[in-house]
């Protein structure tokens, strides 16, 4: 078997893509973001609810797409629940570095998200992995209501 492809599609990733966690509606969400990757048709609908201190009280998603985008969303929502705004932004930067920078050490604070490191060997798949993160970034920026975000500038 080919190591790079095994590294990209680790069993944890395949498992999350088949049985995504935090998948579903969040009826009392403060903000909903529709994110899409027009190059390949990946879609995510992210819903976020904030706690009184502006941290992420709850976060859920629905959508469809490739294993990388769906697993990335699943892992991301598990990681971000309960985090403060600053922590989310810090993780966004660290995660982007994880999937793009070939030389960087995977930061420890990313925890389970480090299984996504294999993406860095597949530059065409970075957008798939980043899609849910672009959506959460937009959710924080927007704060309330509905928004859309795309991996392609429009």
């Amino acid at each position, binding site marked *: 078997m*080919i190591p*790079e*492809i095994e590294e*990209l*599609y680790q*069993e*944890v990733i*395949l*498992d999350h893509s*088949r*049985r995504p*966690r*935090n998948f579903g509606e969040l009826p009392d969400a403060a903000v909903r973001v529709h994110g899409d990757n027009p*190059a*390949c*048709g*990946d*879609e995510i609908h992210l819903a976020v609810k904030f706690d009184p201190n502006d941290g992420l009280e709850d976060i859920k998603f629905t959508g*469809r*797409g*490739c*294993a*990388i985008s769906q697993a990335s969303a699943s892992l991301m929502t*598990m990681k971000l629940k309960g985090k403060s705004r600053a922590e989310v932004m810090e993780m966004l930067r660290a995660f982007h570095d994880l999937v793009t920078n070939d030389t960087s050490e995977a930061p420890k604070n990313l925890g389970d998200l480090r299984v996504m490191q294999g993406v860095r060997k*597949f530059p*065409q*798949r970075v957008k*798939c992995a980043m899609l849910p993160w672009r959506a959460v970034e937009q959710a924080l920026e927007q704060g309330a209501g509905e928004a859309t975000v795309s991996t392609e500038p429009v």
Partner: protein
Amino acid sequence: MGADYGVHRIAAAPIDWKTIREDFPILREQAHGHPLIYFDSAATSQKPRAVIEALRNFYEHENANVHRGLHTLSSRATEAYESARQRVADYIGAMSPDEIVFTRGTTESINLVAQAWGGKFIREGDVILLTVMEHHSNLVPWQLLAERTGARLRFVPVRDDGTLDLEQLSSLLTPEVKLFAFTHISNSLGTINPVAELCQKAHAIGALTLVDAAQSAGHMPVDVRELGCDFLAFSGHKMCGPTGIGVLYGRAEILDSMPPWHGGGEMIVSVTLERSMFKKAPHRFEAGTPSIGDAIGLAVAIDYIEQIGRAAIFEHDSQLARYAAERLGELPGTRVFGPTEERGALVGFMMDAAHPHDLTTFADQYGLAMRGGHHCNQPLMRRFGVSGTTRASFYFYNTMEEIDRMIEILHAAVRFFSPKEGRSPVRPSS
């Protein structure tokens, strides 16, 4: 054999398809340590050595600008460029080289018609008839035209089997329809549309026709007079030619009635500070220095294709496509799109085991180049309720053995992406 697509010429001698592969240097390449299997010719075809050498020869011995210079090289370049135009005219059965406009490709050809012809003749309330299976290149230019003029777009639906719903045609072809623009071969489904019949029906109500021949021009006999179309658009790079060169065929009287679309050098007779006189078609539509070397490369690609014979190529390619469709149907949880009988040189499919992007990433690790996604066919994908498909597309340099290898790789993909007993990590669902 179902409908008659004008494919009835028989090749003189049996063709050694394996030897033909040797004409394509790139087919010796490896990808991830495996021999390359190139199943993405619908996106762009590979180039035979003859074309690569023609480009080199042009830049080494003939390169100069066309139509303006009085020196030796300019005469050579001009002659080669205008001979290429004649070669293209002969290839598609045009009456005259004046009916051949060189463009950058199919997309630019269609945009030229939408802007120059559409800009002059399309008014508010007019209808452009298209089909749901059009590539974005034969959809977006018409959306832009409709926005500018207040014209409306109308669409021939696609049936579940991937063919056009022609029963709807008579109710769609009303007198407001000024142009019926449709593809010859669907780039996602492989459907071959009955072009001659469609053109006849459009002409009966006084509409003009535009045929997107991007997927057919290099794959089967295409003769504009047999088809009876008014415009035909295609790209050089999908038929063994270089990128950056394409063709718009337009019936002479229609091209002559159209105003220029780009202004600049090469397309004028005389210029004052206030106004200009334009050349006749086709030069009126070729402002600026054209892609001279690429036009010459295209002519050599045509020579190469004609040497093999388009009827033989069509037979070979559709055999590959039918075989691939049949073998793909044997894979577990696999949906094959498009007609089962006759199809162009491609197969689109979906596998339950993996999303098209995961599948193409996996296949690439084994040297198999396919395409996953919407193939510039988003409305068609929506019609079939999918966000994308995986597409394997073929040309005469592909073989049955390569298809067998594809099936092996896809079997491996099913095993790879399916849950493994006992290996699945147990995690609480939250």
